[in-house]
């Protein structure tokens, strides 16, 4: 399991991988927050609950990252650890996740660039029995 920042001239992409979709979604979120803060400096002091549904896994990924950006602004929090479950339900794909973090501290968290949005650009979700990969481009 890991995240990777993908090269692009104007913006950047983020890719999360792992043994299953849940891990890949969590890693993509870590990748996105790694652009904004030094993850190792962010303590998991507070937890936000996130529940989402979407028609497709691609839509679920964009919604997941978008929701974390919204919570960052609304609550003033940044996150470093994520715990995710992804299941297919009757109304499409569902995600239940927890994001762990703390209020942004510019002195400790080494702020980077603010991510404006997760986009459908380059969005890809791949999943086999023992490996999953999710990615999309972020607007900075």
């Amino acid at each position: 399991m890991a995240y990777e920042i993908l090269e692009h001239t104007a913006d950047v992409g983020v890719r999360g991988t792992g043994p299953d979709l849940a891990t890949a979604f969590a890693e993509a979120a870590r990748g996105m927050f790694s652009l904004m803060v030094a993850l190792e400096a962010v303590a998991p002091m507070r937890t936000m609950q996130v529940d989402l549904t979407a028609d497709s896994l691609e839509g679920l990924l964009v919604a997941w990252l978008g929701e974390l950006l919204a919570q960052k602004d609304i609550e003033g929090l940044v996150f470093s650890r994520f715990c995710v479950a992804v299941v297919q339900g009757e109304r499409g794909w569902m995600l239940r996740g927890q994001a762990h973090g703390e209020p942004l501290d510019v002195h400790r968290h080494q702020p980077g660039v603010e991510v404006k949005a997760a986009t459908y650009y380059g969005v890809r979700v791949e999943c086999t029995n023992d490996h999953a990969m999710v990615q999309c481009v972020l607007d900075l």
Partner: protein
Amino acid sequence: MELRKLDDFAWELPKTGDMRVPGRIFASEDLLRPLLDEARGGQEWNALEQVRNVACLPGIVKASIAMADIHPGYGFPIGGVGAFDVHDGVVAMGGVGFDINCGVRVLATPLSAKEVGPRKEELADRLFGGVPAGLGSEGKLRLSVEGIDDVLVKGARYAVGKGFGVPDDLRFTEEEGCMADADPAAVSVKAKQRQFRQVGTLGSGNHYLEVQEVVEIMDRAAAAAYGIEVGQILVAIHCGSRALGHQIGQDYLQELERASRKYAIPIRERELVCAPIRSPEGQRYLSAVAAGVNCAFANRQVIAHLVREAIAPMFSLAPERIRTLYDVGHNNVKRERHQVDGRERELLVHRKGSTRAFGPGRPENPEPYRAVGHPVFVGGTMGTASYILRGTERGMSEVFGSGIHGAGRALSRSKAKRTWHGDKVLKDLAGKGIEVRAHSARGIAEEAPGAYKDVDLVIQAATGSGLNALVARVVPLVCVKG
């Protein structure tokens, strides 16, 4: 992908397949070469393919246009302009993007470089301390839900009404700082909640606050109308609608995807989802965008006030002597009247990473600028020149009165970080006499001057094509980054 050369600065992407109009790209061969390489190399994300995709949208008029600073965007290319018939055309989310009405306000001070130069460091510190910027920064104007709704309806007028600025600021703001058809009900509660702390904050990334010196005037008549001269100090504020705009984008990406399916508009790429202008969905999106536009106007208005508060006492100036030269956005969609094939038509013009550049005579321009056209601000990088341009008659007839907006990146952020170190960049800039203050050390390397294209090449193409005209060249003395 083949382009047909029309002249040194104009190229046509011929109409093929599902394209309803041709593509037209106003750039030099040097600027186009990397784009053609990307397109021919089959790169998934390439700007010329985006020009083609926009040309396929229903109701597009004349051409899918790209300005000289074209590079890949989301849906539309950055530097993309698309005008649509208001009766049978569409409004597309990708033509506006996530940072609605991101733009530039320039303040003209009565100060000269001689006065400011020796006190640059102090000035940089005061601006850095006085204007909230960077990740997680909070604005000085605290708002409730009702307060946010007021901002969305009144735009910069709200801020001026609260004492952030003077009425003359509105006169020199595009739309006088307020779009009339904004509807806060079209904006989600989440979008408003995200904005509570962010009104009057600069943001991060390529957003900046810059103290500049006018070093060259190329158009005396326009410069006289704008009231600028060589040696004068200006302050440029580059920012947008912050989190509110970002959330409107995310929300309507979903809504317009449903609308595209409902009205059977083929989705060529997800970020190019759209709705007929006359449909309820299209109207709702336009009302939300207008609200986002107003939020950005209010933002820049508050920041302008904070800049005055930082500078005026330092030089014993009355704050209102620092006047708004102009405030104009570069991520917008607007109803405008234009001549097309000898007939005046009402169009919905999308400009994504393109500044409106209305030329001489347009009634929308503030009276003092009417004879010459309003100023268009083109940002360079931390280490290079920026330019003030104006619209032209040719720009009105060829590109619906549009201009370029910046240099555009040449290197990715990661590559920039690997190439330069923040401290070294700061030292180099200090060596050139530029005081930089930044909230993010990482950001400095990512925004290093070398990571951007040569702004002079972009300017050469924009003015060589006759779409925009050069008025003045300015260089940075102080730069504050988010």
